């Protein structure tokens, strides 16, 4: 698997795991949200790393499919430009995740006002 040869991809998967762990296992609402943000960061890292073209598409250590590049440049292995699309996508994704976090935090504040705690285990009013 070539994914394993890229350190940035491995890091992003690790971050994803850490974030997921925090989100699922931590009882504290704020820590859950931090986990959520870590997960989102891992996705940003993955996208940004994808746009990297230092190694060129013709080698084993590809980053992005040759379709996206200028075919002539790709054939000669001289792709000089970082692919801008992932960066643009990530700008949008950041906006999205900020709004998710904002809504989540405001709900967390409301929950704190109601229960006086941020521990999800102590507020379970919903029956399974």
């Amino acid at each position: 698997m070539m994914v394993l040869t890229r350190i940035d991809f491995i890091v992003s998967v690790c971050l994803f795991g850490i974030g997921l762990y925090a989100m699922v296992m931590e009882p504290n609402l704020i820590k859950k949200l931090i986990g959520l943000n870590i997960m989102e960061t891992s996705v940003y890292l993955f996208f940004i790393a994808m746009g990297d073209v230092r190694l060129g598409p013709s080698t084993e250590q590809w980053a992005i499919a040759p379709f996206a590049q200028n075919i002539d440049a790709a054939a000669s292995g001289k792709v000089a430009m970082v692919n801008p699309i992932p960066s643009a996508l990530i700008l949008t994704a950041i906006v999205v995740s900020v709004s998710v976090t904002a809504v989540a935090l405001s709900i967390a504040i409301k929950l704190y006002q109601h229960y006086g705690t941020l521990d999800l285990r102590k507020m379970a009013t919903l029956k399974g």
Partner: protein
Amino acid sequence: MQSSGSHLQVLIPVSYILSAFISPLLYKWARKCYNVLIPLITGAIFIASGVLFYKVLSSPVGFLEYFPGFSWSGERFLATGQPIGIVLRTDIFGALLVLLITGVGFLVSIYSFRYIAHEASEERIGYYYTLLFLMLAGMSGVPLTGDCFNFYVFLEVASISSYALVAFPGKEQSLEAAFKYMLVGAIGSILIVFAIGLLFSATGTLNMAYASQQVAKIVTSSPDSPLYNYRHLIFASVGLFVIGFSIKSAFFPAHAWLADAHPVAPSSISAMLSGLMIKATGVFLLIRFLFTVFGFHKGYYGQMLTPVFLVVAVATVIGGSLFAIAQTNLKRMLAYSTIAQMGYILIGISLLTKAGLEGSILHIVNHTITKSLLFLSAGAIIYKTGVKDIKGMARMGYRMPLTMSCFAIGAFSMVGLPPLSGFMSKWALAEASLEANFPLLVVVLLASSLLNAVYYFRVVGLAFFSPAQQGTGTNNSAQAHNSASESGSELPLTMAIPIIVLAAGVILVGLQLNPIMKVIKPAVAVLFR
């Protein structure tokens, strides 16, 4: 290729977004005609989507492509044939879903005036409509678009506003459910973005149509081709998409959030979430990616998906039905019933045949109408009598005959009694599974119909056939509430009309199946292209 699109493809979500921001202002400045303006807006959008639907149907290729904005060079394609920029590509299935979304959105926007004033407070109606319109904008945007990242943005717009809407009543329960819903929804969204990233890195494009060509090239490539290495990315992308959409559509192991979030939301929102949200952001996209983008029906991937999906689907159907039987709260029961019905839809998808997909789409249409009807009726009961428990439904058929009759129609359709719409889609699914040589699936469908009958008939039976002396006196809070609002007609007109329209829809879809199949068949043909 020429731009064949219609401006309506942009106008529908954009006008929802605009009205979302106008709504609180209107409420502040024009409170008197607010009740007229909002249905006017949603009604106009509904008509617009009807026009769009007609245009898509009459287009020779079965879809419309619209390029918003402009390109500097006037070029829409690179020399390699790759499209530039975002494209809005609406096929028949998408247009059908948009029609459903705007239609139910129209009815819910009428229904909500009185109901939200009852559930939350009257001052917040302006903000309620902001969120509702944002959700509608997101949901209607998803089926309209042909771009992988664009759909994600719409999906998030819809999701975020739905989190806020679940929390809207501001009670402990709704806040907690909203938080849980948000956590699970966010995990699903992140998985989907990850999958988009993998797809992008394999194909180098976000355009669904173009990506599907590249996917076909990659998965059919021979082992010595350089493209062969990208297969792993495609497989990983498929896996993440499937998991992400399964979370969004509440398939079996990831179903718990739905049973928490849908019942505690205001009933109008429960109807939107159960009826539309899980379809627009879950099943619709699953179908879109499996068929349009990854081309599962072409047999590139062998049969690896069918057994996995069938196990999940059967577990969802049976598990959802069994949990629904155990419920004491009416809306919670309806939510579990939704989970079971999503399993039906998955059965049709997992067969990967045309007949199966036709059954699934028919069931999507039916379930949207029927479940909206059931949740709106449940809301009407809460509005009028305050009864939320199934036990409190005793003799409700005599207190609210109109609402309970409509509820009964919906319940019968869910159980699958002929000739209501639910029977037709179950018939289509059963026929498709027999044709695909899965006779056991028919057993599952029938068994789950029986389970559905158990919990729906319990409610209908209590409402119409319970002894007179038991119905009164057991539910004190309901009694107190009831005496306060007993005077006057059964329901305000703005709440009764949507319920009646939806009930008529349930009957009509059953009786007028031919025109509907005339839409669904080409829709599936476009998806299978």
